């Protein structure tokens, strides 16, 4: 295959499309972070080190609400734990070892996983992963800085509707899961109920953590229904 044919292969196209789009949301992150009181440096460090959108937005949300920082960090890490699951899947599919695996590890997020797992073979998965990682990393970090710096000059975040972008990002991430099945919808409902029910009397960040109880209940219910468990009970 010639170089020009490889350059626009599906994994590269997917990777660029997803990566750039997701990366541009960094603008909303940079803006939210500075509005919440972080410095440009703090927003940048978060984007470079954590490099996982939902966790970053969640932490910034707690900071903005003046809530318990420890709870905010815990919530961010709990959200980040899904990248652990992705890694378990990806390390097989990508099959890298040594330095390449170490570097690739930083890029394990929703978008890179989605593109990599959608490809047909290991070689395309690697290409998709690398493209998505590169595109997302560059765009996300550049726009974080742009958003953070520009916030000082942009008069009103709410006038531009940028405060609505954050929940929209969460909704987009959740959407495909909600279409999955009833169980996901019930857990989502449970999560919302727990959070809204406790937010008036618990410090910011804690209601979100409590919402994980809905997931715990769903897991325990599912495990009691599992065939192995039923057989043992008999």
């Amino acid at each position, binding site marked *: 295959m010639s170089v020009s044919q490889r350059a626009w292969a599906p994994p590269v196209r997917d990777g660029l499309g997803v990566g750039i789009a997701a990366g541009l949301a960094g603008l909303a992150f940079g803006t939210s972070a500075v509005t919440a009181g*972080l410095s440009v440096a703090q927003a940048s460090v978060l984007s470079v080190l*954590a490099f996982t959108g939902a966790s970053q937005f969640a932490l910034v949300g707690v900071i903005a609400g003046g809530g318990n920082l420890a709870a905010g960090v815990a919530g961010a890490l709990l959200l980040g734990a*899904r990248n*652990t699951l992705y890694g378990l899947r990806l390390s097989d599919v990508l099959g890298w070892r040594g330095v390449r695996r170490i570097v690739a590890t*930083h890029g394990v997020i929703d978008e890179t996983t989605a593109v990599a797992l959608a490809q047909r073979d290991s070689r395309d998965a690697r290409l998709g992963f690398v493209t998505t990682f590169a595109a997302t990393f560059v765009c996300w970090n550049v726009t974080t800085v742009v958003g953070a710096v520009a916030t000082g000059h942009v008069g009103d975040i709410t006038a531009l509707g940028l405060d609505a972008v954050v*929940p929209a*990002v969460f909704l987009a991430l959740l959407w495909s899961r909600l279409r999955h099945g009833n169980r996901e919808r019930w857990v989502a409902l449970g*999560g919302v109920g727990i959070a809204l029910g406790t937010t*008036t009397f618990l410090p910011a960040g804690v209601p979100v953590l409590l919402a994980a109880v809905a997931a715990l209940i769903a897991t325990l219910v599912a495990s009691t229904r599992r065939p192995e468990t039923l057989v043992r009970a008999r």
Partner: protein
Amino acid sequence: MSLWIAIVVTGVGCLLLKVIGMTAPRRLLDDPRVADFATIVPVALLAALIGLETFTVGQSIGVDIPRVAAIGAAAVALTLRAPFLVVLLVAAATAAGLRAIGVG
């Protein structure tokens, strides 16, 4: 906990979580409950975050109409399978537009 500590712990913590996933033995997934919980927990958390952003103003239950409308518009865009960026633009434009005409 100072802000910098929270940021660094979050950043390094998130990185470590990725490292664990990429370097851990597959045996971790052998207990179905672990995998199950880890798969479903983001649903609960993301839903909680969306619910809080939509139906609270500060620490109390309340409705900011332009924001609620923006999230609703995002939901419509998602139903219509709009690309990610379009969904974000729709949300921002809805909120901005409603506020511009004096709603909320």
